[in-house]
């Protein structure tokens, strides 16, 4: 690019380099990015709206489809919100099964991300390797839940399937595979000269910025923020476990807040997840996994419930939040999903500033974005995008009613 004129480069919403639709606009001076902005809302599918005409037992499986990777994150958050409103207590064993699935999900999600990161660096042999070893976690999930991607194991009040004693052996074999693999993964990802030279010092996110922009999950922990919902506000079986948020210091290094640190955190979180699953398997309490076997009774309990609640879960990408309000009816009167990427994507403009054009893919990928989870509302009017406030929408609605009455 000639001269020192700043150029604006739009990428997306649909672009071969992007796995999901998102619009990124970069201002570049030569090879250097001097400004960046992004527009989410390109993958809006109206799931929340669909939920408002369904009962919680139906929605819980709809939530499984919000994201293709976090199969349990959304259903768990949603179920936890509904359980609070309806006053349903999940049996202990149900909590343990939920924890095991959630941690398997973290393993497969982090491996998926590690593969994507390697791919973004052009390191495809490592990408294939990461995705091949990910299969073991997928198989374990399929073995427990009956499906590789849409687990559908969460029910309001617990889980729909138990992990039976005869299943333990196979799960333990899978965990052992990962344990044996861990040192190899660590070496391949963290000691590689190419990865080091491309990732150390790129996409810097300082502790202060991570705090100011409320980054969550591994993205924030890589910048030294000791925040992990599993530790800070324990739920499910996490309260029984002795866990600490994983920081880059786990690898015996200082906190830098760069892309490399985000790899470190995720790789070490895989090890943490393996341990969590093992501990859970060892200490599985006996008893039922579901508050009430009869789905009809769950439906009745939900119908009687009224109130509002927030359900949260530390997803592989960071905290996911579901807000649910119910009022003595089949369907909830409000349902709002906030995925972790919504918090993390806001640091993009900061971490992209000053980067080289070629580093953009890995920096963008380093927060492990998931747009399908994030995009909850988009209003397009003749090509120009507008955001309406609640007041404006109410006003429009009132006006329409008035027009119809005339």
């Amino acid at each position, binding site marked *: 690019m000639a001269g020192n004129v700043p150029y604006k480069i739009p990428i997306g919403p649909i672009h071969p380099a992007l796995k999901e639709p998102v619009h990124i606009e970069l201002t570049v001076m030569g090879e250097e990015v001097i400004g960046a902005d992004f527009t989410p809302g390109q993958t809006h599918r109206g799931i929340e709206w669909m939920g408002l005409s369904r009962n919680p037992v139906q929605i819980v499986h709809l939530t499984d489809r919000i994201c293709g990777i976090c199969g349990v994150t959304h259903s768990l958050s949603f179920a936890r919100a509904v359980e609070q409103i309806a006053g349903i207590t999940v049996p202990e064993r149900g909590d343990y099964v939920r924890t095991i699935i959630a941690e398997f999900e973290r393993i497969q999600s982090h491996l998926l991300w590690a593969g994507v990161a390697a791919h973004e660096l052009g390191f495809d042999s490592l990408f294939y390797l990461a995705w091949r070893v990910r299969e073991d976690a997928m198989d374990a999930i399929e073995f427990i839940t*009956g499906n590789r991607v849409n687990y559908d194991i969460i029910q309001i009040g617990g889980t729909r*399937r138990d992990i039976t004693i005869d299943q333990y052996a196979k799960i333990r074999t899978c965990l052992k595979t990962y344990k044996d693999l861990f040192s190899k993964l660590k070496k391949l990802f963290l000691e590689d000269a190419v990865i080091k030279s491309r990732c150390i010092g790129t996409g810097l996110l300082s502790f202060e910025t991570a705090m100011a922009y409320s980054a969550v999950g591994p993205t924030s922990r890589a910048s030294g923020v000791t925040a992990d919902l599993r530790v800070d506000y324990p739920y499910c079986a996490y309260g029984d476990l002795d866990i600490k948020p994983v920081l880059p210091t786990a690898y015996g290094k200082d906190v830098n807040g760069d892309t490399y640190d985000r790899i470190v955190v995720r790789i070490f979180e895989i090890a943490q997840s393996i341990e969590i699953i093992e501990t859970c398997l060892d200490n599985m309490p006996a008893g039922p996994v579901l508050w009430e076997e009869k*789905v009809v009774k769950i439906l009745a309990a939900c119908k009687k419930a009224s109130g509002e609640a927030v359900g949260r879960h530390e997803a592989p990408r960071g905290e996911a939040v579901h807000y649910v309000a119910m009022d003595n009816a089949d369907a909830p009167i409000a349902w709002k999903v906030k995925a972790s990427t919504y918090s993390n994507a806001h640091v993009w403009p900061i971490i992209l500033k000053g980067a080289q054009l070629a580093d953009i893919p890995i920096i963008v990928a380093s927060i492990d974005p998931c747009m399908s989870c994030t995009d909850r509302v988009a209003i397009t009017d003749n090509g120009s995008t507008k955001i309406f406030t609640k007041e404006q929408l109410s006003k429009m609605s009132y006006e329409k009613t008035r027009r119809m009455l005339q």
Partner: protein
Amino acid sequence: MLPMLKEILTQSVKKPVTNLFPAARLPKSITGFLEDVGRGKANLIPPVETPEHMRGKLSYKRNICNGCGLCMKVCPSHAIEQVVYPVPPAKEGEEQPRAQKRIRIYVGNCIFCGQCIDICPKEAISQTSEFLLAAEDRFAESQIIE
């Protein structure tokens, strides 16, 4: 240091993990290949085995179902609809039997959650491990369970 180098070398002598379903090489014509398989002239490489209790296509026993409609209430994707089978008029002196309410499941809509199975009081629905369900017509015979 390039630790991946050793890994690539060891991998290159290992058997590929990919299952070459349905054929090792792309046939000239897929339909031709499938016809050959049907005639026993070609061999199909089977898909990877499914684990026990995989959630695949549903199976429905109409004669057990009592038409309560509970399954429709919990189906997240509205894949189930009610069907009313008329009954012939009663003979003189006999009581007119009620029309039979049963269900129809559209495979194309079903997300295989298995919730209908959980709620069914008569155990009329069960899940098979069949998963090769692609079809061109969503109302084809294979796509409707009734």
